[in-house]
């Protein structure tokens, strides 16, 4: 696997963001989920064809300034500031889970800033009849069962590995808690912050990827996203839960590359 480099950008007067960067070519911005950012095989392979920018959300990793961001709107403006700093007018966005939700917000708030949108099992909706699980009230083993079909797989083991050394363990748990705290800022107590009423504004060509056996955000939510986003294509991937892009790496990469390289995409007028 290629080693991404970590860069630090002061995006405005109150937020400094750390990004993992790798690859050459057209830029793709990857927005991570509530569990944090890890350079995984999906990102690694994506960087074979694109220049991948993967920012740590404010409050996660070396990205600072979470406390200066009041709400989703403030977060959206922060990402536009990041686009400006990277000199990207209209971004290709891939976002997983909470990152997918942020991607949708970015595409809905100022449609001109998003060129293509690829949400993977995005958060942002809540159905009382079919509620998504509460990630803030789960034991680690319960979370594992919710987000990955085969909890004995190498991917699962890598995701939930704990170091033996106590100092490393303490440091890791603090990182996990800080990451979840940043996510909670935008997902607590329910992830529905009104996105449903804004989805109609998205004009970017959109492909939604969802694991058919998603144990965290029910696959039924996918249809809501598809129906409310004007030009959206929905791809359900079998034998995959919430970590679909790692569980079905080949299929998801193929769908991703197809979507990001298609040249006949037209923006909705």
């Amino acid at each position, binding site marked *: 696997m290629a080693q991404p480099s970590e860069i630090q950008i002061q995006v405005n007067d109150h937020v400094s963001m750390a990004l993992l960067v790798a690859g050459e070519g057209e830029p793709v911005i990857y927005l991570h989920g509530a569990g944090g950012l890890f350079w995984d095989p999906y990102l690694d392979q994506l960087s074979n064809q694109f220049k991948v920018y993967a920012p740590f959300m404010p409050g996660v990793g070396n990205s600072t300034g979470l*406390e200066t961001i009041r709400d989703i709107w403030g977060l959206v403006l922060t990402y536009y500031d990041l686009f400006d700093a990277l000199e990207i007018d209209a971004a290709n966005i891939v976002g997983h889970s909470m990152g997918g939700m942020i991607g949708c917000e970015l595409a809905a708030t100022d449609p001109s800033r998003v060129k293509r949108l690829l949400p993977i099992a995005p958060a942002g909706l809540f159905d009382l009849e079919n509620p998504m699980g509460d990630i803030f009230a789960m034991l680690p083993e319960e979370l594992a069962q919710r987000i990955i079909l085969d909890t004995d797989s190498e991917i699962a083991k890598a995701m939930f590995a704990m170091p033996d050394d106590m100092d490393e363990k303490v440091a890791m748990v603090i990182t996990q*808690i800080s990451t979840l705290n940043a996510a909670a800022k935008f997902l*607590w107590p329910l992830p529905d912050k009104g996105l449903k009423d804004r989805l109609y504004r998205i004009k970017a060509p959109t492909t939604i990827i969802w694991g058919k056996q998603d144990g965290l955000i029910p696959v039924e939510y996918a249809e809501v996203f598809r129906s409310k986003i004007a030009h959206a294509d929905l791809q359900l991937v079998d034998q995959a839960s919430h970590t679909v892009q790692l569980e079905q790496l080949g299929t998801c990469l193929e769908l991703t590359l197809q979507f990001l390289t298609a040249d006949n995409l037209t923006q909705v007028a």
Partner: protein
Amino acid sequence: MKFVSFNLMSYRDLPADFEQKHDSVWVTPPKTLYDPRIGHDTYHDYIDALEYSIDLGYDAVGVNEHHSNAYGLMPSPNLLGSILSRKIRHSDTTSLIVLGNSLALYNPPIRVAEEFAMLDVLTGGKFIAGFPVGTSMDTNYVYGINPSELRERYYEAHDLIMKAWTTDEVFTWNGKYNQLRYVNTWPRVAQDPHPPVWIPGGGSIETYDFSLKNNYSFSYLSYFGHKYAKKVMGPFWQRAEELGLDDNPYRAGYCQLVCVSETDESAEKEYAEHAMYFFAKCMHIDPRLVEAPGYRTVASLKAGLRSQLDGSAKFGSQLAGEGLGWKDFIERGYIIAGSPDTVAEKLKEAAEELHVGNIILINQVGSMPRELLMKNLQMFAEEVMPKLQDTWPEWDSSDYWPSGFADSYSTPDDQANKQEA
């Protein structure tokens, strides 16, 4: 030394298999386990006990706030406080302490300024205001406050309440979480400049500084007694020294379960089952709901995570589940129990070791019935308290205890003069 007769108002009639059948005493305990007829008697027994504590001459009677909680049945402690104020107003010795209102949960927070001012006036200036952040279960899980905002909301609410209490003019508040064009809380507080403030906490680093810098009294509220409290009070006094402050014991208090009987043996006979009820049932808390991410700051996490990860910090029901019983509770200091001499001796030793002036007594332990509660209160007040009251004779408690009605209040004429000047 001063003594608070404190009551959590626990439900005494949880089923014997509660902790086996249900995940938690807090946040998710099935409401169907609560029988309002039993609850009616329970509330009135506890109110009777607090009123009796006033007769017995405790320095204060105390109530607190919890939500969706079967061991703490006071979602609104101010309601109970208002009942108690009727008797406290006639008392020469006893104050009311609400320990307290979780500030971030009140919208707008001037509600606390108003209700606490009502209690201050109702009691005749014999009121102590408790300002807890509140537990994560109460604030984040039950009341839905975003954990990343909880402490900011708490500090903003505190500043707003303090300004409301100490400002005579109508003022405007433009905060991050509260915008109020006209702040002018009535009634004004009875004490000058405001009721003493106590900060109950679980020992987060930030709380030490907040208490010390504002000259509030810090109360360490854990149910695990004096030996455990040492871990918190040690760093607290160290911080006081670093800040160049004196070590007035009334700057701090701690919470202690206490059971008094004629002899050490009869204490075990009378209280053991109720102590077991407390630790096995009332402390049966779902680990999923103990702490939202961000509830503790990184600094506090660094200080406390190790003991959680290596398994040395455990919940009450885990302890009970491991077969711990009365003798372990005594040995570990969770409970101070026995004859009046035994209790007095141990409590004095504990208070001196912790260097605290305020003892918050949990005399109602778990399922204790009315008669036993009254006996516990009486024996402590008559046979233990007199032995300990002069423990800190050289220290002045008046910064941290109520002072009654202020001698004088500013008048409209003062206002006019001030404006002319």
